[in-house]
């Protein structure tokens, strides 16, 4: 038993932290938030060149062939830096789905380009307000073409390819759903950029007007593959959330040391001190749940589904908790555009819904605990 990342993994984490401190200070995040560029192209290219994007992609498909534990520590640093790049869509979701269910040809064709960053991928599943469930997926697949719309699609405006959850058989059940791979740079695609709570990660509506598509995995297997992909992504995104939570806590702590009121550092007021202590507690619980998630992911353990839901709930709450209280600690300054607090607040709330909201993951957690209990 050893509940810690190895020395090599911690070195990799340090390396990623230094790299991001240099290439992705919050001024870079702000540039995307405020400017017209949808993502940080130079950073994206750099992450590809450093091998960070391909860390968990096998060498035969152009990755580094390390593993999930390595990808987890990189994800934590990306989250800490609020990196304005489509890693979660392209790597945590699309590359993972292709690894799990793609044909040999699809893997050969796309994984090397995803690993280098030359191609950006995204997952398109949402059609309606509320949770994604088989009954509200209507986008239809017929004779190798897709018709319908998905919205919102994270990174949908910048992606080159999408994996789309679509209905090949009429009805409302899960068996009628399959996953399709679509080249988004074709005439049958129309994209509209959306205004969102966190413009440092862009989102779009994508209309599919008879766009050419190819199946990923077996027909009728779409819902299962989709749910399994969400579980793996929940753990990787969970590390982004842990990284963000830690940074928001540190910002709050640093400000509490430096800001004086009533002749003393505000961190000496118990209301502030205890608020920060509670932030530390949620960040720590999330990290510990995350370590088990990372282990389950890296070993393909039977506990993966439970670990994913546990971590998702825990890290979502921790990041939201730390980001909102970080603003509180900063007082009026915390509500200014100029301070970075709102960047964390925005991102924490984007990530909180990006793979489905807390209520969905709470449900999954209880269902899974119950299934395990019954077994």
């Amino acid at each position: 038993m050893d509940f810690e990342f190895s020395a090599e993994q911690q070195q990799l984490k340090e390396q990623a932290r230094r790299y991001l401190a240099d290439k992705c200070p919050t001024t870079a995040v702000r540039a995307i938030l405020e400017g017209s560029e949808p993502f940080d192209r130079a950073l994206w290219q750099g992450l590809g060149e450093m091998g960070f994007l391909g860390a968990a992609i096998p060498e035969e498909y152009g990755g580094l062939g390390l593993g999930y534990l390595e990808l987890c520590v990189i994800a934590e640093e990306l989250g800490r830096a609020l990196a304005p790049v489509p890693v979660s869509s392209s790597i945590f979701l699309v590359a993972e789905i292709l690894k799990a269910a793609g044909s040999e040809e699809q893997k050969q064709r796309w994984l090397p380009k995803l690993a280098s960053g030359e191609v950006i991928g995204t997952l398109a599943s949402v059609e309606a307000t509320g949770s994604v469930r088989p009954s509200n997926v209507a986008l239809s697949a017929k004779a190798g073409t897709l018709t319908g719309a998905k919205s919102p699609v994270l990174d949908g405006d910048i992606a080159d390819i999408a994996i789309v959850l679509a209905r090949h058989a009429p009805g409302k059940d899960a068996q009628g759903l399959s996953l399709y791979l679509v080249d988004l740079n074709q005439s049958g695609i129309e994209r509209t950029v959306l205004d969102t709570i966190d413009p440092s990660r862009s989102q779009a509506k994508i209309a599919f007007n008879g766009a050419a598509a190819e199946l990923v995995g077996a027909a009728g297997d779409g819902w299962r593959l989709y749910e399994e992909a969400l579980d793996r992504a929940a753990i990787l995104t969970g590390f982004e959330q842990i990284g963000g939570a830690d940074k928001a806590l540190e910002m709050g702590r640093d400000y509490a040391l430096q800001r004086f009121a009533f002749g003393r550092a505000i961190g000496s007021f118990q209301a502030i001190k205890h608020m920060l202590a509670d932030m530390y507690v949620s960040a720590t619980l999330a990290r510990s749940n995350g370590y088990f998630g990372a282990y389950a992911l890296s070993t393909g353990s039977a506990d993966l589904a439970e670990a994913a839901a546990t971590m998702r709930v825990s890290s979502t709450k921790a990041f939201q908790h730390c980001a909102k209280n970080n603003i509180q600690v900063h007082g009026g300054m915390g509500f200014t555009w100029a301070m970075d607090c709102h960047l964390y607040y925005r991102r924490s709330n984007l990530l909180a819904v990006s793979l489905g909201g807390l209520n969905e993951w709470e449900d999954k957690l209880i269902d899974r605990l119950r299934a395990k209990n019954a077994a």
Partner: protein
Amino acid sequence: MNFDDTPHEAAFRAEARAWIQANAPTHLLPYLEKSGYGGIELGGLDPMKEAKAWQKKKYDAGWACLHWPKEYGGRGSSPIERVIWNQEEGPYGALSGSFIIGHGMCGPTVMDWGPEEAKRELLPRLAAGEDIWCQLFSEPAGGSDLAGLRTKAERDGDDWVINGQKIWTSGAHYSQWGILITRTDPDVPKHKGLTMFFLRMDTPGVRIVPIKQANGQSGFNEVYFDNVRLPDSQRLGGVGEGWKVSLTTLMNERLSIGSGMSAGFPDIFEFCKELELADGTLAINDRGVRSKLAEWACRQSGLKYTGMRAISALSRGENPGPENSIGKLVAGSSLQEIAMFALDLQGQAGAVSDPKLATMAAKFQAQLLRSPATRVEGGTDEILRNIIGERVLGLPDDMRADKGIAFNKIPTA
């Protein structure tokens, strides 16, 4: 990152499991599995007698106080082996309640600071469960503010003479020994004038008065000292070094109370699987119930894995640090919230605390009445948050009105 046993750990686990299977008091198992929070009930058998018998059996076979050195009655095991033992001992571990303070706090303090002769004589008896120890720290004037204590120890030749009062001393009424912190110099700032001792609880001049607790039980006591005479050989650490010595105890206290503490999720989960709500659905299928259950499930597993991370740090040779304060902080309020929620779901029947009538043998009712203590004993929630804020996050100390002032000049009202 590996949650599986190494071959060596697996062998150790197999050995522990085989020994437990062959030797554990299986006739007590049904009671131990049912027994709730804040005490065990063994169908009329004497819990202390059964606890001592199990402890002695473990000791004789070399399974007591695993992490202690062999010469003091332990097994010289690694922190991980101790975790494995605890997992394997499972429900039988509930028998060890009365030994926690001795094994977890007093023993390690005596081991670090006691004279060699006393260690060789007393620690094996403690490990064997022959002696029970208590912790004589808190006083009417000083619980959170422990260093504000007033019990005096005055030098008289080779002896010390103790006068004063302790309070909230758990188990003093059944303990043979105790560790005691006293004030030996009132003319210096409060942390500097303290000295620690160990003593037999039947030393002349010691008077123990049980206190009836809010939940009706009597686990803790007042202990009065009236010219109690102790030889200097019963001193722990140097004169005036009592604060430093007491930190050994408090650090170990946090580790032994907090780590591995259950936040109470399994019980409420079981209950919600069975309970039908007004609309005919099972509680566990209700969205609002699920949201709460998920929160407690995450705290439960978060604490478990935080504890395991602490053990890993310990195996790497790191000391148990202030970050271990989170165990009791999280578990205490979770246990209380869960108890209140369970009663709420039980409706008007929630008020009934008769184990023969109430759901799950009135587990939640007992938990309701005991859990306020968890948020106080061994450091209140507020003190734990101070520790996390100051010692983990590096925030400034509280403003103190007594800083740098000689103890006897500190305002008291």
